[in-house]
């Protein structure tokens, strides 16, 4: 349903070029949840923003994506207008920053319905009330008249979700949708995301730095580091038999309820690997070649892929 090819995002700095995302390709099927994990700065959000045509103006982007039978080039921003909000829904980390504080939450959900689906304001309000109760924003009939500050963080996030799914998009992109929330509220939101994908055969791109969240929801997982995909596989492959040293580090860093942390000691700090593997400076297994040459992406059995010299 969605296939992204050779997505590259660069920023020009004073006298150098910074590659935030380097030649990333992936695809998602209908009804599938694709998880993207990686540390801060690995390029997860930039990837999501590119798919929705929302990159900052100073970003230079190339590559293409085919979505719902159409091929689009990232360079051409005009193609996204009709898609965002109708065929592609977006949920961001910080609902407070994305909701308009001066408009009732009901209006903010009803607007895309009027704009993209051509509903009358009355119809849109009825649909908004239905969405609010489906997402547990109760009492829905009163909640639609509230302003964002009158809702808790978890309720605001559900309003964002309601706005994102109002037009029944085929593709939903959720960038750290639960990072600012308590675990109980997080579980509610994850459940709602899962139900939406399941009931509408939609695709979901779930971005998180928390491998626990990814393990609970995703079917396929991309692991990003330094703007590249260093490993890709099914959620079982990634969580149970990680291959890439970076994936192993991420897994070892996750505090667990059932076992103490076992951190591998890494101290190659100070190494520079410009032009080499993005993880070489922190990799416990690096060799000379890792500092010089970018590891090529290797395709393995069962649709798995990694980019590492020693594998």
């Amino acid at each position, binding site marked *: 349903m969605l296939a992204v090819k050779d997505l590259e995002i660069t920023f020009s700095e004073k006298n150098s070029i910074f590659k935030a995302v380097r030649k990333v390709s992936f695809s998602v099927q209908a009804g599938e949840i694709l998880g993207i994990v990686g540390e801060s700065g690995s390029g997860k959000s930039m990837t999501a923003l590119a798919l929705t045509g929302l990159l900052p103006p100073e970003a230079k982007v190339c590559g293409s994506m085919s979505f719902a039978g159409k091929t689009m080039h990232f360079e051409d921003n005009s193609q996204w207008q009709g898609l965002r909000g109708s065929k592609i829904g977006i949920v961001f980390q910080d609902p407070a920053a994305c909701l308009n504080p001066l408009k009732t939450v009901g209006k903010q959900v009803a607007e895309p319905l009027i704009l993209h689906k051509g509903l009358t304001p009355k119809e849109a309000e009825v649909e908004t009330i239905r969405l609010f109760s489906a997402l547990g924003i109760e009492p829905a009939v009163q909640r639609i008249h509230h302003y964002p500050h009158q809702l808790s*963080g978890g309720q605001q996030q559900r309003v964002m979700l309601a706005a994102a799914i109002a037009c029944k998009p085929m593709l939903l992109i959720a960038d750290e949708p639960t990072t600012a929330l308590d675990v*109980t*509220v997080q*579980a509610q939101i*994850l459940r709602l995301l899962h139900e939406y994908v399941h009931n509408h055969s939609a695709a979901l791109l779930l971005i998180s730095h928390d491998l626990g969240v990814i*393990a609970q929801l995703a079917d396929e997982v991309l692991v990003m580091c330094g703007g590249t995909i260093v490993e890709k596989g099914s959620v079982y492959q990634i969580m*149970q038999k990680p291959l890439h040293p970076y994936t192993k580090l991420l897994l070892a*860093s*996750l505090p667990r309820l059932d076992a103490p942390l076992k951190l591998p000691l890494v101290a190659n700090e100070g190494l520079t690997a410009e032009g080499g593997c993005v993880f070489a400076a922190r990799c416990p297994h690096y060799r000379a070649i890792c500092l010089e040459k970018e590891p090529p992406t290797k395709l393995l059995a069962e649709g798995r892929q990694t980019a590492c010299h020693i594998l």
Partner: protein
Amino acid sequence: MAKLLKVKNVAYYYTAEGTRIRAVDGVSLSLPAGKALGLVGESGSGKSTLGKLIAGLLKPQRGCIYFAGERIEGKMLPSIQYVFQNSTAALNPRMRVKNLIEEGLIIQGKYRRQQRINRVLTALKAVGLPETLLYRFPHELSGGQKQRVAIARALIMDPRLLILDEPVSSLDVTAGARLLALLKSLRQEKHLAYILISHDLAVVRQVCDYVAVMYAGKIVERGKVEQIFSSPGHYYTKMLLSAHPSPDPKRRCLPKIIGEPVDPSHIPAGCRFHPRCPQATFACSHRPPAFFEITPGHLVACHRTQTQIF
């Protein structure tokens, strides 16, 4: 065992826009020297307020706090240090690392310049930062490095109790894990007692000996780490544990969570958790439950647990 810290029935109420917010409402706990207590609970349950009461940054409106046998309500002692939630944002951006770390000593005025520098170097080493960072400004440090500077600022005062408010929640996964490893080793070396405040049960599990679970200004369950994690007594603790996303895709479970977090200006009567509790009975909505010791050292404030035992 002699307790280093004893908190007895403390309460603290904020007043905001005419409404009274019972942020901490009758909390008791104790901690032996050199041990670590994890304080968990959802956003707004009163964790930071309790931490600030113990650190003397706030003065309780009710109850007493004893430290090494002395009453300390509203007093700030050098031997109790508090590392703020978002401490990395609170570091003065115009001060260099060295000055940030020695600030407390200068205010105290007990040490000469050279002694202070030696102590700064020791603190820096304790938190695993290289000396090359001494003259940097906060904006030239990573999140993990800033958090270490904040901890070094506290350590330099030679505390016996260190209160860490959400030390890893603002850090990246890998930096957070490294900080947790550091906290573990520091505790062994310095025989420090910790109170670690976190909304993440897994973080507490990594570092602490004891856990206290807060809900709407009250502690609802406390005990040893193993007791709480292997046989949680309170339904809220069970809810927290079940909602924690396991990294094992074979153990998928998106539990149905009932209800919403408590609105602090409308705290329910009886057991504060009853509107969200799957097992609430008539008693739960009418009488606040008292603590009941289900196994030695494991206390639960829940009517149901109590009746099940008998």
